[in-house]
């Protein structure tokens, strides 16, 4: 048996887990690991510029591939720098293993140099975490960490590695490494209960106004085919959450786009008036439900989720099914009979006609126009990452994705600065794809230093800054709910993004005219070695609509004021429904929508 150091054992375990990249940053407590990495050929280390970037890159990599992302940082300030990235992964259930260095076991608890309690700090933001105490434990703990991160409801796992543990030498035979170990106290449920599945099928048969509400769980379990088949067979229309985007092709006629606070009016009307809500891998986040006692208040609820704790957490559930979304839907499809499109479908299409998602095509550089153009030029095929704010919501509304793992955004935590590092992780995982980070001028500046990482590794990510010279989303709330008292949201004072790109060795462009969006995007896409920053200068005072104010219901939904005029500009040809004689259909449903 070879004699190996803890650090060497660690890398060997990572290799056996199929790790391609470690996103990291060195320091005292991880020196043995960096020394082992120095001539370890099978794993590539990506040197970031800030540990938060490393965590988001690992997360972006994981979201794009479904594999476990790995980040590495030293103890103390480096471990705390990972925190935002770990919390981001935890909120969106992303498989990730975060490795941190720690002071020697003999120094733990003594306020040693760069000692922080990484375990204590990350307990509430990880699926699980480990403090390694002995070199012998490394293989077991690493195997458990990867298994826990990727199985059941995925999530981040942190392993804290004291210096003496990575330094220690033991005899170890790498062929003994055991992947996916059995952990008796951790056995996720994958297969749904058959009785419950039959009940769900019956509820679907009996429903008059069913809706599919699909979340990130469907993306994670790779259930696009099943969701689409269920929807096509039953003619039940599909709305997805921000995390669920791509669970059905958004250009599919059965897709209603996103629901919730900035969801489409028609998706929200459909959910509000439905009599059966089929929740698939979704968790009834408050940004989706608004006021709880008004949310889908006429509906029976079927809730399919791999995490039993999600069922009944927020809303009452009539038919709970615990299991992996894809596996459960496969079973469900055995019992579900074809069902014709009904008046209900026509009703929803009528809402779609009345309350379309539109923006004015008036020769101005509206943010929506820029995103629509990006969508058109990339033919809907780019992998999108985002920051957080208005640009993120516009991207969710207007960048219609075709497949799961194509829209990569911080949903649960809403982490500004997520976009660029996530895009780097995605681009490394998928070098041949076009990766576009639709970013805010504020968000971009939170992790801008990772531009250097993209330049160094020759990653052609495109950062499309929707530059409204403002913390736009906060400005919107201040305009609408705080009497236009614009407190600290002005970002006029920002660097010249074109020069900034140049300073980093990236390519910078500025676009101020609508007709220049397409050529700029085409030029950016032709770059295959350098990141491109495009500064899209858009108006400041524009809001994201529709909007259901926080904690309120569809009755308070705000629509854009010019919707009436814009409606005429929407081309409804090619929709699969005719819009004749719809007024009477509207009347036969439970409740009239608030604004007709």
């Amino acid at each position, binding site marked *: 048996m070879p004699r190996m150091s803890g650090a060497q054992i660690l890398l060997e375990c990572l290799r056996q887990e199929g790790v391609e990249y470690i996103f990291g940053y060195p320091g005292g407590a991880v020196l043995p690991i960096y020394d082992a990495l120095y001539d370890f050929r099978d794993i590539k280390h990506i040197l970031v510029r800030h540990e938060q970037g490393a965590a988001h890159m690992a997360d972006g990599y994981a979201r794009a591939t479904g594999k476990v992302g790995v980040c590495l940082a030293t103890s103390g300030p480096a471990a705390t720098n990972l925190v935002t990235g770990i919390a981001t992964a935890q909120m969106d259930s992303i498989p990730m293993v975060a490795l941190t260095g720690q002071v020697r076991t003999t120094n733990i608890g003594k306020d040693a140099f760069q000692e922080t309690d990484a375990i204590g700090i990350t307990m*509430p933001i990880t699926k699980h975490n480990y403090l390694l105490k002995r070199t012998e434990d490394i293989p077991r703990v690493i195997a458990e960490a990867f298994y826990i991160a990727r199985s059941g409801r995925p999530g981040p796992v942190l392993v804290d590695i004291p210096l003496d543990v990575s330094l220690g030498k033991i005899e170890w035979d790498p062929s003994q490494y055991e992947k996916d170990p059995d952990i008796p106290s951790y056995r996720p449920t994958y297969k749904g209960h058959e009785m419950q599945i039959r009940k769900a099928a019956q509820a679907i048969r009996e429903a008059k106004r069913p809706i599919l509400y699909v979340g990130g769980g469907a993306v994670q379990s790779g259930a696009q085919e099943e969701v689409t088949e269920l929807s096509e067979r039953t003619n039940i229309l599909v709305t997805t959450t921000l995390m669920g985007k791509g669970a059905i092709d958004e250009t599919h006629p059965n897709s209603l786009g996103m629901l919730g606070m900035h969801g489409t009016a028609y998706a929200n009307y459909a959910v509000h008036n439905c009599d059966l809500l089929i929740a698939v891998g979704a968790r009834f986040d408050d940004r989706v439900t608004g006021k*709880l*006692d008004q949310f889908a208040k*006429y*509906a029976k609820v079927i809730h399919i989720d791999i995490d039993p704790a999600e069922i*009944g*957490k927020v809303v*009452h559930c009539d038919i709970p099914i615990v299991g992996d979304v894809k596996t459960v839907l496969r079973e469900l499809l055995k019992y579900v009979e074809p069902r014709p499109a009904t008046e209900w479908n026509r009703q929803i299409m009528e809402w779609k006609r009345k309350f379309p998602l539109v923006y004015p095509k008036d020769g101005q550089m509206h943010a929506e126009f820029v995103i629509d153009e990006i969508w058109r030029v990339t033919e809907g095929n780019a992998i999108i990452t985002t920051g957080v704010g208005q640009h993120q919501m516009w991207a969710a509304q207007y960048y219609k994705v075709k497949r799961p793992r194509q829209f990569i955004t911080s949903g649960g935590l809403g982490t500004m600065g997520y976009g660029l590092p996530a895009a780097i992780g995605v681009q490394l995982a998928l070098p041949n794809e076009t990766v576009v980070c639709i970013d805010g001028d504020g968000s971009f500046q939170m992790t801008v230093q990772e531009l250097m990482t993209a330049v160094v590794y020759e990653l052609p990510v495109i950062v499309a800054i929707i530059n409204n010279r403002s913390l736009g989303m906060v400005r919107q709330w201040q305009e609408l709910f705080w009497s236009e008292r614009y407190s600290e949201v002005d970002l006029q004072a920002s660097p010249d993004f074109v020069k900034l790109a140049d300073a980093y060795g990236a390519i910078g462009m500025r676009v101020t005219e609508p007709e220049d969006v397409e050529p700029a995007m085409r030029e950016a896409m032709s770059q295959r070695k350098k990141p491109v920053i495009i500064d899209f200068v858009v108006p400041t005072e524009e809001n994201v609509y529709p909007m259901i104010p926080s904690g309120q219901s569809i009755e308070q939904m705000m629509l854009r004021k010019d919707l009436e005029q814009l409606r005429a500009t929407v081309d409804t040809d090619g929709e699969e429904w005719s819009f004749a004689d719809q007024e009477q259909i509207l009347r036969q449903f439970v409740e009239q929508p608030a604004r007709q």
Partner: protein
Amino acid sequence: MAGNAQNGREHQHTITALVQNHPGVLARVAGLFARRGYNIESLAVSVTENPDISRMTIVARGDDRVLEQITKQLNKLIEVIRVVDYVEHSAIERELALIKVNAEPKNRSEILQLAEVFRGRVIDVSEKTFLIELTGGPEKIDAFARLMAPYGIREMARTGVIAMARGTKTA
């Protein structure tokens, strides 16, 4: 029908969790309760017949939905092996209390008699105090403490409830 899941009447529940006997498990459980805003009324932890496994007995209040969430969230912790919620009185519950009570000479026989009725034992005597040991369900200990109050309780320590199902059933 859909609708807010957080309503209903509050009950007291005794929850037993079998957990792996690892350092930090207690912090995970306590952190979970604090983070999710659940109230712990008492918590008792000790090792079981298997030294690798500890048993935590938690008394918590909440409506049925909250208690269901507590149970599910506990189950989600990787080191938690099993969780049993003993609703109301389906289990035997015991607690141990040490009560240091003022015992003036004129009150001594009265206190001794009361202690005897409750099957308590005087385990230490000083000129001015008795130290009484008492086991039983929490109500019994509450009742005894109420009776001792007029004499002046100087100090009281309770272990918190531990619980076990009747009969052959195990957690």
